[in-house]
């Protein structure tokens, strides 16, 4: 009897001991990192993010130099199918059971805003590159989110501002009917009005529309000087192609592709896309460093495409994340703590140059206004842009003085 009781006591003690050990282990700083790339692997944003973002994350892990110092870095990925509920489900599972430390990329603002709430609730990290909504670092900002590559405010300032200044003072919007499209339309409307322009109307087209002719006819009938395309990916390429068909540009109206990626221009072809103005924060052919990265990238990608700015943002954002981890002396598995360190250290990487991550989570770097080359000017299948203007980082993004982010002290 006494032996049994002793055994029971020892057993209980052991169980408790192990539980405590397990609980403590959760917060122990170690050298293991797990990255989850949550992206669109199958639909309209798969070329601007997708498999390329996974490759970019793997390259960042390889190039961080941490593996040689005994760190263990895993990269996993999943397809959110552009559905916020699907994306949120994956994010929860990743954080709760797969022990993912950081969720990267997440194109589609609807999904990104859902994941944004989850990482805050669970003290994980969202390193967003693919989504556009500037709300991620404005009203919806969290201490766990970094928004790296671009946002709708910057696109509105750079492309929208340039077009109004060039005389395009009346606008009509064709807007993708979800969070990103609405944000882009609102941000651009503000820029147009601030520069003395007028918005004549807008139409909301469902996401992933194949035929834009109805919307284009409404835009044509509005007689606006500029037709602003507040959409992305396949929606943008379809609207531009069909606008050419309906003689919209020949009729004197201008198209503003408010968000266009290298992959879109490449797939449209220069015959249709030539002369379009667009804004990006990264172009593969900008300097020796971006060319070197892009060459390595396209060799690893199955389709051998050049990287978009979203891919570049995943790479550069994760490099900065690794630097912060190294400065912390290990991975504390504490999202807010790592993000605070990322904000404290200035960013410096081969693709975006020197910059900072502000208190609201916004990464600051210059924005470039490009013009799509004419077929005669292009020397190769990916020689697509010429630089026509640069907006310095401190002017490209929403100033903190206008911010509604709760982390910003006014």
């Amino acid at each position, binding site marked *: 009897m006494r032996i049994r009781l002793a055994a029971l006591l020892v057993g209980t003690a052991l169980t408790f001991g192990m539980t405590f050990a397990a609980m403590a282990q959760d917060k122990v700083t170690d050298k293991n990192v797990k990255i989850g790339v949550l992206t669109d692997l*199958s*639909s*309209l*944003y*798969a*070329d*601007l993010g*997708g498999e390329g973002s996974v490759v970019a994350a793997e390259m960042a892990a390889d190039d961080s130099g941490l593996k040689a110092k005994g760190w263990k870095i895993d990269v996993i990925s999943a397809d959110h199918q552009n559905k916020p509920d699907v994306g949120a489900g994956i994010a929860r599972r990743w954080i709760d059971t797969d022990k993912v430390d950081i969720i990267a990329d997440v194109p589609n603002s609807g999904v990104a805003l859902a994941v944004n709430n989850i990482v805050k609730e669970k003290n994980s990290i969202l390193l967003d590159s693919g989504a556009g909504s500037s709300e991620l670092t404005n009203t919806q900002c969290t201490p766990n989110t970094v928004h790296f590559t671009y946002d709708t405010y910057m696109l509105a300032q750079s492309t929208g501002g340039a077009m109004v200044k060039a005389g395009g003072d009346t606008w009509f919007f064709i807007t993708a*009917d979800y969070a990103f499209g609405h944000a882009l339309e609102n941000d651009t409307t503000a820029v147009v009005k601030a520069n003395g322009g007028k918005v004549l109307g807008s*139409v*909301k*087209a*469902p996401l*992933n*529309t*194949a*035929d834009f*002719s*109805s*919307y284009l*006819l*409404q835009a*044509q*009938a509005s007689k606006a000087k500029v037709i602003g395309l507040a959409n992305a*990916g*396949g929606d943008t*390429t*379809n609207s531009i*192609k*069909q606008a050419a*068909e*309906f*003689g919209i540009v020949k*009729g004197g109206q201008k198209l503003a592709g408010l968000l266009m990626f290298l*992959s*879109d221009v*490449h*797939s*449209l*072809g220069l*015959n*249709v896309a030539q002369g379009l103005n667009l804004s990006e924060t990264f172009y593969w052919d900008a300097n020796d460093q971006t060319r070197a990265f892009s060459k390595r990238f396209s060799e690893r990608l*199955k*389709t051998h*495409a050049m990287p978009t700015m979203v891919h570049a943002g995943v790479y550069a954002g994760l490099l900065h994340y690794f630097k912060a981890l190294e400065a912390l002396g290990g991975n504390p598995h504490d999202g807010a703590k790592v993000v605070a360190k990322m904000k404290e250290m200035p960013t410096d990487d081969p693709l975006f140059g020197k910059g900072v991550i502000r208190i609201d989570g916004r990464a600051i770097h210059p924005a470039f206004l490009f013009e799509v080359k004419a077929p005669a000017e292009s020397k190769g299948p990916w020689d697509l842009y010429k630089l026509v203007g640069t907006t310095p980082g401190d002017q490209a993004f929403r100033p903190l003085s206008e911010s509604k982010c709760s982390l910003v002290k006014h």
Partner: protein
Amino acid sequence: MSINLQALSAQLLVGLINGSFYALLSLGLAVIFGMLNIINFAHGAVYMMGAFCAYFLLNVFGIGYWPALILAPVLVGIFGMLTERTMLKWLAGLDHLYGLLLTFGLALIIQGVFQNYFGSSGLPYAIPSELQGGINLGFMFLPIYRGWVIVCSLVVCIATWYLIERTRLGAYLRAATENPTLVRAFGINVPRMITLTYGLGVGLAALAGVLSAPINQVRPLMGADLIIVVFAVVVIGGMGSIMGSIITGFALGIIEGLTKYFYPEASNTVVFVLMVLVLLVKPTGLTGRAV
């Protein structure tokens, strides 16, 4: 909202253009279902293959749009006949569900393979030089190519209807679906006829693919996005009814066009709302026979 008559007529015409695609695709589905009793979920995938086929003919072999209009449907049709001979044949007489699952699986595989090699944003295909430009109709600027799509689709739809409902060959076909054993007893090779019919249905989808290549990007998922709407069209028109699917195709294109004008947010759901209403009132579809 004030109704602008000019804008409205423009939207009606645009709806008619989209209706041309719905009609061509739902016609193929109706032919296949009517003659083979197979719910062909691979229809969107073969539509996409038609567009890709036109792209390859042009960029690899230098064969332009006009020959592709004939060649691509024939090539994709042959692919269709091969799948019928090697796979679908074995499902004859089984529940509809088997054919549906097999063709759905096929569609996923085909789309996956194309997406693996060509990505998702697609490839450009230019409008043939003869059909570039447009005509100003007063109420709208009609691109010549879109006008051509309406004409071409109408001609093909009516020819197919005539072939099946008014010719001796069509009579054999319809007889073979009613009673294959009896028709075989008259010395007609029924299995070969079934294979050819499947090829015809698939060829119609591929033709729609070629027609749409210059309008949309040639994308691996172009069919997946469209096929669900087309199925709704077939359900509304009545499974297996040739004329029903043609008329419903054009009509729904117009209704969708009007929705895009009055309440664009609902434009990709209006077809399904109609489908629900029709199913509630007349479960066999507007012109359909009982399944």
